[in-house]
Every structure is written in structure tokens, then in C-alpha cells.
């Protein structure tokens, strides 16, 4: 196999990590929404923690995107 083709295959496999981040974000926002529908008065106070969890979870997806972009453009 040529190295060029291996780079593309590796980039595609690395992008699978963003699917994991998507699952995590769906869990976070779904649980936030169900909690907010149960107790709407407490929803606004937890918005900062929601964004914090979103940022931490999305960071791992960004890492896999970074690996994919490095394989595509930088290596």
C-alpha cells in the first residue's frame, strides 16, 4: 500500500472519534434537557456547567479531528 493511501485511510479512521464525541454530546444535552423539563427553575443555574461539559467533551472530538487534519494536510 502506498503511503498516500494509508494517510487517507488513517484520516478516515481518526474521524470515527468524532462519532464518540457526538454520542457524548447527545448524552449531555439530552440529560440536561430532561432535567430542565423536570425542574425548569433550576435549569438556568446549570447552564455554565452544561457549557463546561460540552467544551470538555467536544475537546476530545477536536483532538480526533486534529489527528485527521494532520494526517491529511501536515504529515
Amino acid at each position, binding site marked *: 500500500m502506498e503511503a498516500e493511501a494509508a494517510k487517507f485511510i488513517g484520516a478516515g479512521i481518526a474521524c470515527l472519534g468524532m462519532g464518540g464525541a457526538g454520542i457524548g454530546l447527545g448524552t449531555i444535552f439530552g440529560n440536561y434537557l430532561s432535567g430542565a423539563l423536570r425542574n425548569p427553575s433550576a435549569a438556568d443555574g446549570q*447552564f*455554565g456547567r452544561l*457549557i463546561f461539559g*460540552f*467544551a470538555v467533551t*467536544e*475537546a476530545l472530538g*477536536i483532538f480526533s*479531528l*486534529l489527528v485527521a*487534519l*494532520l494526517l491529511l*494536510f*501536515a*504529515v
Partner: protein
Amino acid sequence: MVDSNDADRNANPGAGGGNPEKGGDSLEARRKRLATELAARSAPEAPEVEGREKPQGFALAVKLSSEFIAGVLVGALLGYILDRFAGTTPWGMIVFLLLGFCAGVLNVLRSTGAVSTPVPGSRSGSTDQGTHNQ
């Protein structure tokens, strides 16, 4: 609305004219009437804000996600351009993509109001640093 309240105010002392505490009673009545008038005046504005907020939910979601993605994409693009012209092949994209991620999160926090937007005039002046140093 004001005219009708004035008419009520004029009519009430006539009805309770035999009250010895007429001044205090009318003051209480006036305060109650003012409270009800304020509630009636602010009540039509509250559902309007709610109604305006309902379609804002979807717009807010699209705005937040687009701001986050824009931060990451701009960081990746800047890193790629820097790598291409400076020759620091992997590191520019790594550093600038992480910086773009941080900028995207900061954009999201700013647009939700969790972090205040910096005022352009206040940053040039050294009043904040002066107060912090003192």
C-alpha cells in the same frame, strides 16, 4: 388607562368620605392602585418577551453551534496557512486548532452571556489594571 384610574381615585374618597383616617387610607389605596397599574402595565410585556423567546431557541442553537464551528475552522485554517508559509509543518496546525477551539468555546460563552463581552474602550485604558494593582 391613566384617565380611568384618575376617575377611580376621585370616586373612592367620595364613597368613603366618613373615614377618619382618610389621608392614610387614600395613600394605601393609591399605593395598591399603583401596584396593580404597574402589574397590568408590565404584564402585557412579559408574554411578548416569552413569545419572542420561543423562536429564539432554535436560532440560539444554530448561532451557538455555528460560532463554535467557526472558531475551530478559523483556527485550523490559520494553522494550515502558517504551516505552509513558515514551514513549521505539524506544529502550527496543532497549536492554532487548539487555540481555535478555545476561541470557539469563548465565543459560545460570550454569546450566552456567561462571559461578558469586552468593551473596546475599556481595554485601552489602564483603569482596570490600576484598580487591580491598588
